[in-house]
């Protein structure tokens, strides 16, 4: 069974979407490790190391996603999990910005998949199956 670490990054306490993601991924047959809200980059990475996770899925709903996610890939490299999949989604930047630009920013930061606001989790499921080779 593939393991996915999920959580809400930074000073963000939006818990509802987080629960929906947990529910959906569990039903899809993944081992979900939910570290919850107010999680730091280190919390995600530590959990991924201990659980030997295949993917980290970061949620951010309050617009500060860019600041919160910066340097996360570099930390994964330092921690010895350089090949782990990094996904991010939610309202990851403030206001209605051009999503192509936003996507590029996060891809440059080392995220494998970047999702715009309002994406149903089922869309991400397809990418998941592809990326985790199932």
């Amino acid at each position, binding site marked *: 069974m593939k393991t996915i670490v999920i959580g809400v990054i930074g000073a963000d306490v939006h818990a509802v979407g987080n629960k929906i993601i947990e529910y959906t991924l569990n039903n899809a047959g993944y081992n979900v490790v939910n570290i919850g809200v107010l999680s730091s980059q*280190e919390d995600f990475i530590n959990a991924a*190391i201990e659980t030997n*996770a295949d993917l980290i899925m970061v949620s951010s709903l309050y*617009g500060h996603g860019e600041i919160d996610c910066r340097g996360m890939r570099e930390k994964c490299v330092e921690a010895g999990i350089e090949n782990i999949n990094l996904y991010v989604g939610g309202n990851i930047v403030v206001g209605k910005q051009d999503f192509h630009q936003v996507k590029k920013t996060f891809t440059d930061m080392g995220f494998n998949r970047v999702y715009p606001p309002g994406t149903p989790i089922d869309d991400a499921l397809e990418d998941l199956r592809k990326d985790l080779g199932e």
Partner: protein
Amino acid sequence: MANFLLIDFGSTFTKLCAINSEAEDIIETASHFTTVDSDISIGYHNALDKLFEKAGKRIEFDQVIACSSAAGGLKMAAIGLVEELTVEAAKRVCLGAGAKVDLVLSHHINKSEVKDIIDKKIDIVLLAGGSDGGNSECVIYNAEMLGKMGVKVPIIFAGNKSAQDEILEIFKKYNMDGYICDNVMPKINVLHIDSARDKIREIFLKKIIEAKGIKKIESEIDQVVLPTPNAVLVAAKLLSEGYLHEKGLGDIVVLDIGGATTDLYSICKSTHRKDVLISGLEEPFAKRTVEGDLGMRYSAPGIIKSLSEQEVKFINLEKNVDIEKEVESRFNDVKSLPQNAHDEFIDQFLAEMCAYRAMHRHVGRIQEVFTPMGVVYNQTGKDLTDIKYVIGTGGVIINSKNIDKILLRTTNILNNPQELRPQHPKFMVDERYIMAAMGLLSQKEPLLALKILKKYTKKLRGNANETKK
């Protein structure tokens, strides 16, 4: 009717406590220097003679039970993967079992770290790492490393259950003294203490007792059941929770300042509040922390080391002493007892420092986080603000003329808003120094132990607020 003799083979003193179950009371207590280097029975017999003399008669005992922290106590190494997770979990299990954690290792261990395990004469190694179904590569590597380097002491594997089979093979391959038990952190941030703790106790009884020279008097005592700090933890938990119809005291903190270490025990949930978000590894209900660098004799230099040069000078000026010299003399003569008012003053001061520092490391923290949803409180560690009683034990506290001043140091005297120290506790003292003994007795007669504990844990006059005035 039954007479119990409870023995605590401490690092400095062998303490005896005789109990009569019918009177539900202490018959007499006595102590003598521990003589573990020569023959531990000498100190024991001297203490026993003293006890008989004080009681004015010989007493026949129906049961003789002992706990021990002699010869350095139970020395353990805690190995895990990530520092904040399995390493911390392993460490907490060792402390909860009453051990001294002399080595804490994370990730892939190297040769010099394994050499440390051998050189420091570690008694038991606790090997953890990986949640269940998670990382197994690291624990397997570490077990292989311990085997290859010829570590012969007992090794308890309490890591990822998926790695158990490989670990067992490694134990067999290198002919290691290995044991398997449940994972200390089966899921992220979930702490599972019981299985590994019981295994540590079991090995302590079977093997460590012998290595610590206590085997010599085994014919005279029925059983050595626990490491001393574990006995104190058991007693504190009993005193807090109560037993059957006999009520306990509720949430408590116990402070034990010794010659070599300062131990803090807190018996309470991690928080009573509903408006906080808790992060980090789950906290044990009965939590023990040990500060190996804070103590009155062996570890007195550690107190100075925790201060800056300026702080030392400030203390010297303000108190008109040479604190470094005082500490040095205590370190060089660990058996020394205060001879005059000056010695008492210094001991009181050192004890207050130990109490403050130890609580600083034990207590949880709270942080205000400003989010777009408003202010949120984020807590790590245990919230002790609503603790009802802070109880002091250990020679220096019991013999102090200002016990309340030492215990006061566990509260928030510096008004640091982030530290969740006890706010308005009442102060109590373990007057007859019987906590460890009652922990032992509770293994046989919990109700009797609780009644005696309650009787001899005396309230000091005043509470935190009054003491401040």
